[in-house]
């Protein structure tokens, strides 16, 4: 079995109001020194068999076209075979 983990976050130049609200809450709850918070999404995809070849290429393509919007978001993809 392969586990694919895709992390998606807004690009650094895109304002993240949710992250900003979380940063404010962390400060109010006593956490000092909060410089910035960015809120993202994580997809954990379990697959039958190893992820390789064409299927690995398709997984990358779908991470870029479905799981993230390249206009506003970056993603990282890691595979644990």
């Amino acid at each position: 079995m392969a586990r694919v983990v895709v992390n998606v976050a807004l690009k650094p130049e895109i304002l993240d109001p949710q992250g900003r609200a979380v940063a404010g809450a962390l400060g109010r709850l006593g956490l000092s020194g909060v410089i910035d918070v960015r809120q993202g999404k994580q997809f954990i995809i379990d697959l039958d068999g190893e992820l390789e070849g064409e299927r690995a290429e398709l997984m990358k393509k779908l991470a870029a076209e479905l799981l993230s919007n390249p206009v506003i978001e970056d993603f990282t993809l890691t595979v644990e075979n």
Partner: protein
Amino acid sequence: MSARIGVVTFPGSLDDADAARAIRIAGATPVALWHGDANLHDVDAVVLPGGFSYGDYLRCGAIAKFAPVMSLIIEKAQVGLPVLGICNGFQILCESHLLPGALTRNDHQHFICVDQKLQIESTETLWTRDFSPGQQIVIPLKNGEGGYVASEATLDELFAENRVVATYVGNNPNGSYRNIAGISNKAGNVVGLMPHPEHAVEALTGPTTDGIPFFTSILKSLVGAS
């Protein structure tokens, strides 16, 4: 026979009935299209209405772009089919890459619902011909993720090519870059708009009737084309 304008209903669409009513008031025939439809029932134009298609899961409009009816609309829009996306429809058009940029969460985090003043910037699109350039109108605006974002280069191009259809007047209600409320594609057949003209077509139910020209514009465009 009057023009046939399709209105797509996705699971989670809210404003499809109002869009159909606006089309009727403008003098055309609304045609209900279902997200699973495999044909467009000979419509002359399409409205993608507001709401929360597929629950806004993943990203607003991200799932809707893969609906069977959308693959037909995307294909035809690229060769001239007039399409107006309102609110969630605008988000779907951006996700489908028929329009550049994206819509993100309002900068102040809150859902807004106001009667919004707009300035019509381009009357060259198929959906805005009945306005005069610079005309100011008031129509409802209601969104949680209405902040229009795009790269500086894209924003410059949109203004240079007269593809900014409408801008917000007064307070920027959602953090949209350069006060952009709506844009069009290069050909001017595809327009995305965050505010809701379909809610401003009757004195009884809307703040104004300023939304009507969007729908009469397309009628004139269709008559002119045929």
